[in-house]
């Protein structure tokens, strides 16, 4: 027997010829066969108007057409169904316009008291080797807010999920301890609030406002640099909250020691709890992230495509999601799976070109970092500070940019390649037991991002 969809399509094409076009598009367009049982076909229609009209007016025609295709059919009944398959498809196509689902009513009134976005939850947070320490710390804190790791300081590059993690912590704490007052704020908002309170001469309201919370989550701490009064205010707030065992959570894109213009007393306080970093996800985690996003969007891509996206977009999770969204949206528009070539074409603009920096630029940037003249690097001098910078340049050129030893030597004032190898090994060994040097290297690497 022909399957019902095929049957109805055949039937409709017959009917389309028999009735006028306006009539067909008004009455038959959104209908389908709901089920077939014991010789009776149940036709699903969108509403009662259509049901009445079809059964009064077109009953005979439909039955006649149906029986012409299938002898076993003895009757037709019309039922009102919620969605015809066609309108289902349509709503799927509508989806990409807003990839985020509508918030239910309780979320429409986002709680202004805690500022948390309910969208950020641990269910959608993907844990991999790159962030498992941060995740473990967050779970420990959720179990005992204020008791362990206070403050928690999370740092990592942009788009790696810091905000997601800390907001999810806020939401989890809020759910588990409904009586605890959680508050999420970006440093920028905090600074503006502070300036406003000074302006309107109400510093006490400002102080009280933040002191009443049980858990404070502060995002983007790196913007503290240069804001001296805000730092002082944060320092006092920190002390008060810490004294009262209130949990404090910070996020930043740098380690506190490398936030320029941050006062020492704040640095040391940030370090007294736990500092964890979120690094860039490695290939397997990127695949896991892509798969999770695909599942949420209800789209399937071939393994080949997923692994291509994961391998071509490195580092940033946000960019990874952005590229994936492009692919998902296109897939939903076209409504067919993609070949690898098509995907390559789609996301070619999202892929950053391979790192290719002129040696001169590296020298200049690192010389600037150590505050020495660029020209001195090329000279044959053995002054300690110059040597260190020169060795660092060689190390970075070799490690990060894969320049050959002889070329490095040649470019840096005609040095022998063994000199370069020695420098490389020396820095490599020093890095193992000199945290200051490690920090410097990290800072330098940021410059080339």
């Amino acid at each position: 027997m022909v399957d019902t969809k095929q049957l109805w399509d055949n039937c409709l094409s017959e009917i389309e010829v028999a009735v006028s076009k306006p009539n067909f598009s008004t009455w038959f367009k959104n209908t389908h066969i709901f089920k077939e049982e014991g010789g009776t076909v149940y036709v699903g229609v969108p509403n009662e108007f259509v049901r009445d009209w079809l059964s009064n007016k077109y009953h005979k025609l439909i039955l006649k057409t149906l029986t012409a295709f299938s002898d076993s059919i003895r009757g037709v009944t019309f039922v009102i169904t919620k969605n015809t398959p066609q309108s289902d498809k349509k709503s799927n196509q509508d989806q990409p316009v807003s990839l985020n689902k509508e918030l239910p009513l309780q979320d429409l009134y986002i709680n202004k008291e805690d500022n948390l976005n309910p969208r950020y939850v641990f269910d959608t947070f993907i844990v991999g080797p790159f962030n498992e320490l941060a995740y473990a710390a967050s779970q420990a804190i959720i179990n005992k807010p204020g008791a362990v790791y206070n403050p928690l300081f999370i740092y990592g590059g942009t788009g790696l999920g810091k905000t997601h993690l800390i907001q999810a912590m806020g939401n989890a704490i809020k759910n588990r301890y409904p009586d605890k007052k959680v508050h999420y704020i970006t440093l920028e908002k905090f600074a503006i609030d502070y300036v406003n309170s000074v302006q309107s001469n109400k510093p006490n309201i400002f102080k009280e406002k933040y002191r009443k919370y049980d858990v404070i989550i502060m995002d983007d701490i790196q913007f503290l640099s240069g804001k001296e009064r805000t730092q002082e205010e944060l320092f006092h707030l920190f002390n008060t909250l810490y004294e009262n065992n209130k949990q404090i959570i910070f996020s930043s894109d740098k380690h506190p020691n490398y936030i320029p213009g941050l006062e020492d007393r704040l640095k040391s306080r940030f370090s007294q709890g736990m500092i964890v970093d979120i690094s860039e996800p490695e290939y397997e985690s990127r695949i896991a992230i892509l798969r999770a996003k695909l599942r949420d969007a209800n789209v399937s891509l071939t393994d080949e495509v997923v692994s291509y996206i994961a391998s071509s977009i490195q580092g940033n999770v946000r960019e990874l999601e952005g590229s994936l969204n492009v692919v998902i949206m296109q897939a939903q528009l076209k409504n067919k799976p993609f070949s690898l070539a098509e995907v390559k074409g789609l996301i070619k603009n999202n892929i950053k070109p391979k790192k290719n920096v002129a040696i001169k630029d590296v020298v200049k940037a690192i010389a600037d970092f150590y505050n020495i003249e660029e020209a001195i690097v090329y000279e044959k001098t053995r002054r300690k500070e110059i040597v260190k910078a020169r060795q660092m340049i060689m190390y970075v050129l070799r490690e990060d940019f894969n320049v050959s030893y002889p070329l490095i030597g040649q470019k840096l004032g005609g040095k022998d390649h063994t000199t370069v190898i020695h420098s490389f090994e020396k820095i490599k060994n020093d890095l193992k037991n000199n945290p200051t040097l490690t920090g410097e290297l990290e800072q330098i690497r940021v410059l080339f991002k």
Partner: protein
Amino acid sequence: MKVECLVEKLKSAAVICERSAGKNLSLPILSSVLIIASGKSLKLRATNLSLGVEIEIPAKVTQEGIAVVKADIFNNMLSSINSNQNIDLELVNDNLLIKTKQNTILLKSTPSDDFPTIPMVEGSQIEIPAKKILEAIKSVYFSASISDIRPETNSVYVYGEDDMLICVATDSFRLAEKRVKIKNIAISPILIPLKNTIEIIRILENCSGDIVLTTNKNQLSISYNGTYITSRLVDGIFPDYKQIIPKEHTTEVVVLKQDIISALKLANIFSDKFNQVNMTVSPIKKIFEINTKNNDVGENKTKIDGALTGETVEVSFNYKYLFDAFIPISQDSVNLEFNGANKPVVIQGGGDMSFTYLIMPINK
């Protein structure tokens, strides 16, 4: 077809039919009205396949028959004819010949074969005074969302509970709930599309007696002496709104409705492009003040006398949302209950719990 009736009766039926007739649809016949003469009455029917009406008016039928004429033309024509006289309708060569003492009009009629039937709803029936259901719906429908992206908020939610008929509407910025006491009301929750609600209100304005409300899963119908209205229902779940209505409050204000309405009207002249109206309540200083400021126009402050209790609070609202709250309130005084700066405010009529209006402040 040959029939005679009163112009006045025909007029009021034609107005309703024109509004319910379809516009810009793929089926042109929907913009017409079907006229049926049979037995001792004349029936006018119009539908846009979402809403359908059928109105029966008494008439002297000499010859039974059916005619289909354009609804807008039929209505325009009748509105220009003197009331208080009789009118004759006769089908001559498939055209409708209309005669009064002064006028003779020939209207093109089209074949009636394609004119849709309107569903006769079968389901649970209840009898309600029209006034009560009208009051309930009219108190809330303006709060429904105008956009049809979410069909469940683009409609009015109606349900019965403990001898109460309850109507609710929200567009997520404000919410209105009206409770009307009706004995033994058993009506399962339904969502009436906003567009149809507006038409139903218009039609029921002229009804003084009881209506029979019939509902099933997909359709509702309202019928009263000779008028039959049917509307499709939205298939969806209305958001669980009860949980967001605050049960307590930190500040309460009781003022005369007229005072706050005049203050708001003045305030609106100076409101900015976001229609922002600021409200300051300070029970300690005994100040309840409404102020607005527009850099291009100027600013104003209005103090309103009232009974203030609780904490000091400053909130801003959208003028339109705030003003809407006072229209359905019939009492002379109104209660405003605040819960701090960024929490919804509850507005009710003085001593009247039947109407509740919830409004979100503008985020500062």
